[in-house]
């Protein structure tokens, strides 16, 4: 009998903690956020040779900023006609150096070509958000400027593709 009593008493003790546990419940709430891919060109600064005295050399620089937090592939969709200037005297093809810089003043990663179709530079994923500049430096020889007066204009088209 004593053994039975102890067993019953033990069961009774177990029942009471179960009642206490029933007083406490747990739930959970999900929290979430999505970090955007940043990939956008900013406002370009035109490459402008300005007013040139005929038969003198001229230089100019232009750039367009790009903000990104992913890798990028640069290409020049217009290939050989990139940056050609057309005007009253016909077409002038400046010589260019081009590439990407961390500031708008200096190229740190050069394009493989400034006048070729296809990919000209691939940059990997940065450690964070970067603001870089696609820079074109143009030069005209004296012979090229010895032409008919007037306005000569063209376009440099650069394509940036997230990588």
């Amino acid at each position, binding site marked *: 009998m004593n053994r*039975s009593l102890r067993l019953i008493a033990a069961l009774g003790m177990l029942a009471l903690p179960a009642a206490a546990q*029933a*007083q406490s419940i747990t*739930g959970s*709430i999900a929290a979430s956020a999505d970090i955007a891919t940043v990939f956008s060109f900013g406002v370009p600064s035109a490459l402008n040779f300005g007013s040139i005295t005929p038969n003198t050399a001229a230089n100019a620089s232009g750039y367009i900023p790009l903000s990104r937090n992913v890798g990028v592939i640069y290409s020049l969709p217009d290939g050989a006609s990139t940056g050609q200037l057309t005007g009253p005297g016909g077409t002038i093809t400046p010589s260019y150096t081009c590439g990407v810089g961390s500031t708008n003043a200096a190229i740190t990663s050069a394009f493989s070509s400034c006048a070729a179709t296809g990919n000209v530079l691939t940059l990997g994923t940065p450690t*964070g958000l970067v603001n870089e500049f696609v820079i074109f430096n143009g030069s005209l020889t004296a012979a090229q400027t010895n032409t008919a007066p007037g306005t000569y204009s063209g376009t440099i088209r650069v394509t940036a593709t997230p990588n």
Partner: protein
Amino acid sequence: MTSRTGLAPLFALLLASWAMPAGAQTTKSVSIIPVQSLSFGLLLPGHRESVRTSDVSRRAVVALAGDDPVDVTLVLPTAMETPTGERIRLSFSAGDAALLTTSGSTISTLDPLQVNRVQFGNDRTVLFVLGGTAVTAATTRPGHYTARVALLVNRPGT
């Protein structure tokens, strides 16, 4: 025979002890019903974004139903993470939680860092809402970040 007679009151006592929790669970139960997650949405790197308790589309909402007062404790995460372990820091401060009626009226503003006593009204249901602040770094990578806030509900004194 004598021993069986002695057992009867003990059985009665044992049955009584089982009957009490059964009664507590049916008439004194508390329910936690998640209604809406805390959603910061699309964030940019290098920014700080707060979700206020008044932001109906982004705040977390949990319905609590019961009769007697309960104490609500939150286990708050310090960050949201991607599956690969990248993190966005999370912070919570006083005023980032509130109790609302089911019609949306504010009953009280709460400090999610403290234990909060919740009283149920006549309709037995209140809405517990939670906001917070996410702080992204310039180096925060694109992706989907998640965390879970645990909600512990206890009857006072248990």
